[in-house]
């Protein structure tokens, strides 16, 4: 037991190994990289949402001392780099080619000695525009007279994701048995329908996107420090775009100041910096400002949904029909596994045993920034979970069934796992009902409902929100998931040094999740070496094995599994070496925390440290020296973490201010590697859920002008607004994951958002309100109050 504790392995809330550098200001983020002769890039952006570029005059900018170049689409054309492929099979203008399609679109990049000169010069680039009518409302995108956004696609009946039927149409994707679903609706005792919006928001990590590109003309090699959640994919894309062999492209994701989906894509700023460095032969840094970040790189959501449920009169759901109109902006640059135009939206049957379902998503172009990233969630899972978790409340209200009770009646039962969902997923494990009871008891749900009844009698507004969600994370099985043709496996390479410490390198990349700690803990337990002595490295494509990166909660499900598998290969070899040292056959050896001993003889022992030493000087005949292994793990399935959340809100009926009285989050992510880190991830995810539900919105006026793209307007909760979080857990291991673990960091965001919304709507349920769209700002809530006449 003591030996076990010394390892600080799986299950231990050990302190994070990465923290010492961060608390002393010694992290290395992209903007901290300073190379000799480095120049600075600044992007000239479109002020208009839709306009023809009449002319670009660079002369004044080029005349400014310290300016080295001003590049435009014209300059990129001869290189074939004025357009680039997106992860979604579309193409995107690197620099605007003859026209701009969204406000703040990249029109030119100025390269200068420093950021001040670059900013001055950007102001001197004169661009003449001829404004065109802007298309802002996605519901009008497919109107006959809608302005055409993508002239480059006119006449093409395909934009990478299936057939198009209109110039502004990108794709139509559907899944499920439509006829059977329609029949179930026709014969249903009860049906409900609601328009439900997941508004356009932005992940806004504290660090914005940027890169330092450095091309070595002598060696023909390119090194790019970049804020990327997927450095290996960046390397492949850079090679495909530039023709530089992958062996001469080195992508380094150093410390990353938060990602949340914002740093999965490949942005025009990166490409311009790389091209500039190649052309000028000097390192070029490009770092976006916060305004540029919110305006251009990677919005999320913008799903205009319609939810429908059919049920019997006891509230048992008999069919589900969901539709979403997806506003993808001017280029289809959403970050999903390539074959999934609507991501994993089909997880929308949730935690419920729904016999038949049909889901459809239509993607359209508008004059807005491209993106559609998974903001702290697996691909489009927030949108799906929001729909089902809102709709089940709508159904409960229609039938006057308690919102906890209706969930009980519809849950997939523990003995149904592995469960085949109507939309084609195989849920690996789950145990929803006991978890729900645990939360209801912890929060005295009965008591809360009683209190609510009393408050309502006094005209006070109190809401109780429940959310009982299932996520789908850990993309993913390569038979189902790829990015640009590369299967979504992940990897780990472990080397045990002669003196018994180790280094491991992975294809994932931490952005605050604590990989340097949790992966070390996995190896510690598997190999019996202290996690203090295990060094984790990620993000450098020259040293790390190829991997698909960190997003969609895939690090533990895929990278963590690869780590365990690599470690197990090493242990198997170590066992043979130990047997050789102890002069018995390997089958007669037993593993015991950090050592091997001969079965039935606990004193005949070789510790892993002793075996490591022997691996470099005394191995069995015919065995290779060394103690290392690499594993590329292709998961057999996704993992399906779940959670039961409860939120209590009190709403001021005069101001519309919503105060979060209580937020209780029970998560089940299977076996837990570092409970301290898990809890931290849940706090953070809940806070981002709070941000989305209560305040975040990227809005536009009728001409496509962004309304609020600074932190003055865009809501990032401070210490003051943020509620107190209570966390809890159950453990239902994943049967197919080597450690029984599932992903966790995104669950709180996915489950938190509907929970807040359900609480706010619940406060008005007695007045017949079934749905109000996010964000639930004081003003929006006040509007509901005022419409209902509750403020008088």
């Amino acid at each position, binding site marked *: 037991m003591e030996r076990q504790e010394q390892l600080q392995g799986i299950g231990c809330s050990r302190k994070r190994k990465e923290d010492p550098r961060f608390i002393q200001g010694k992290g290395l983020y992209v*903007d901290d990289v300073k190379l000799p002769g480095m120049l600075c890039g600044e992007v000239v952006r479109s002020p208009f949402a839709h306009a023809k570029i009449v002319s670009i005059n660079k002369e004044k900018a080029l005349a400014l001392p310290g300016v080295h170049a001003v590049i435009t689409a014209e300059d990129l054309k001869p290189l074939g780099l004025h357009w680039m492929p997106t992860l979604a099979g579309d193409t995107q203008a690197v620099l605007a080619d003859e026209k701009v399609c969204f406000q703040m679109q990249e029109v030119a990049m100025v390269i200068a000695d420093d*950021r001040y000169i670059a900013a001055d010069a950007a102001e001197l680039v004169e661009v003449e525009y001829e404004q065109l009518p802007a298309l802002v409302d996605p519901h009008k995108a497919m109107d006959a007279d809608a302005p055409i956004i993508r002239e480059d696609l006119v006449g093409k009946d395909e934009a990478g994701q299936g057939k198009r039927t209109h110039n502004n149409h990108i794709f139509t994707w559907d899944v499920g048995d439509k006829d059977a679903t329609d029949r179930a609706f026709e014969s249903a005792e009860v049906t409900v329908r609601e328009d439900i919006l997941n508004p356009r928001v932005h992940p806004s990590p504290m660090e914005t996107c940027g890169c330092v590109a450095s091309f070595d003309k002598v060696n023909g090699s390119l090194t790019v420090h970049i804020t990327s959640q997927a450095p290996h994919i960046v390397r492949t894309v850079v090679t495909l775009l530039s023709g530089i062999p992958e062996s001469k492209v080195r992508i380094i994701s150093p*410390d990353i*100041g938060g990602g949340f989906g914002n740093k999965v894509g490949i942005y025009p700023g990166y490409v311009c910096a790389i091209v500039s460095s190649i052309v000028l032969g000097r390192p070029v840094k490009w770092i976006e400002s916060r305004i540029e970040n919110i305006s251009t790189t990677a919005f999320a959501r913008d799903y205009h949904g319609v939810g429908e449920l059919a049920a019997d009169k006891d509230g048992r759901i008999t069919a589900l029909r969901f539709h979403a109109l997806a506003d993808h902006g001017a280029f289809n640059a959403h970050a999903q596994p390539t074959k999934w135009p609507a991501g994993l939206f089909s997880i929308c049957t949730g935690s419920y045993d729904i016999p038949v379902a049909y889901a459809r998503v239509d993607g359209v172009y508008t004059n807005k920034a491209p993106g559609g990233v998974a903001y702290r969630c697996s691909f489009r899972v927030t949108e799906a979970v929001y729909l089902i978790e809102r709709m089940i409340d709508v159904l409960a209200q229609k039938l006057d069934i308690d919102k906890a009770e209706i969930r009980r009646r519809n849950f997939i039962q523990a003995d149904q796992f592995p469960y085949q969902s109507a939309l084609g997923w195989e849920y690996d494990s789950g145990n929803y009902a006991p978890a729900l009871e645990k939360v209801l008891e912890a929060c005295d749900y009965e008591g809360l409902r009683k209190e609510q009844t009393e408050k309502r009698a006094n005209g006070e507004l109190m809401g109780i929100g429940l959310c009982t969600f299932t996520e789908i994370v850990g993309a993913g099985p390569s038979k189902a998931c790829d990015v640009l043709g590369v299967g979504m496996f992940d990897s780990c390479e472990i080397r045990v040094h002669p003196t018994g410490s180790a280094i491991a390198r992975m294809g994932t990349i931490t952005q*605050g999740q604590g990989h340097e700690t949790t992966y070390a803990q996995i190896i510690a337990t598997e190999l019996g070496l202290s996690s203090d002595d295990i060094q984790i490295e990620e993000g450098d494509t020259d040293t790390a094995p190829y991997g698909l990166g960190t997003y969609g909660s895939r690090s533990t499900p895929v990278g963590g599994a690869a780590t365990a598998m690599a470690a197990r290969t090493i242990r198997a070899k170590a066992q043979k070496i130990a047997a050789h040292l102890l002069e018995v056959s390997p089958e007669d050896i037993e593993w015991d925390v950090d050592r091997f001993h001969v079965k039935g003889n606990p004193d005949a022992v070789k510790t892993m440290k002793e075996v490591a030493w022997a691996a470099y000087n005394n191995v069995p005949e015919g065995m290779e020296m060394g103690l290392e292994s690499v594993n590329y793990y292709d998961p057999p399935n996704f993992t399906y973490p779940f959670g039961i959340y409860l939120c209590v809100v009190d709403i001021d009926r005069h101001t519309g201010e919503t105060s979060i009285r209580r937020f209780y989050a029970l998560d089940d992510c299977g076996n837990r590697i570092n409970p301290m880190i898990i809890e931290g991830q849940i*706090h*953070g995810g809940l806070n981002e859920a709070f941000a989305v539900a209560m305040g975040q919105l990227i809005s536009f006026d009728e001409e496509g002008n962004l309304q609020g793209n600074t932190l003055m307007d865009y809501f990032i909760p401070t210490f*003051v607004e*943020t509620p107190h979080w209570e966390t809890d857990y159950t453990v239902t291991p994943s049967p197919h994951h080597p450690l029984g673990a599932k992903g966790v960091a995104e669950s709180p965001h996915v489950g938190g958002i509907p929970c807040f919304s359900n609480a706010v709507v619940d406060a008005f349920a007695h007045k017949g309100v079934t749905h109000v769209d996010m964000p639930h700002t004081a003003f929006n809530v006040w509007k509901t109050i005022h419409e209902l006449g509750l403020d008088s």
Partner: protein
Amino acid sequence: MAKTQVSFNLNGQDVDVLVEPRELLIHVLREQLQLTGSHIGCETSHCGACTVDVNGQSIKSCTMLAIQAQGATVMTVEGLAAGGELHPLQQAFMDEHGLQCGFCTPGMLVRGYRFLQENPNPSEEEIRSGMAGNLCRCTGYQNIIKSIQTAAAALNADTGSQAE
């Protein structure tokens, strides 16, 4: 542009720099003086990632010109640990898991350092309002609050033991 010489005390050492009048303190700290602990997270002074301590006050160094630092005493996160020992706040952030991606952490620490001198025994409410100028996206703030409480207790125990 003509440069001006600016002299100030930075983390206990006198420094002289030549700056353009328009240069912001954060850029001079990060790019000339190579102290990259303080970060840039926005340009509207909302995020607090660039917080440094100037003459005993928390200052967002993205909204202060370097020339305004003439004669000032400036402390950044790099100056927090004294004589190789972590400051109790640094230790507490590590112990209570008060950081994740680490980007906001230097600003949080420098603000927390000043805040605990302004209010050595803060309630949770007081921490929430006293730290509200610093944004974090990762932690949900709860463990930062715990870290500051833990640090306050450690600092108070220190002063207590010195008084004895």
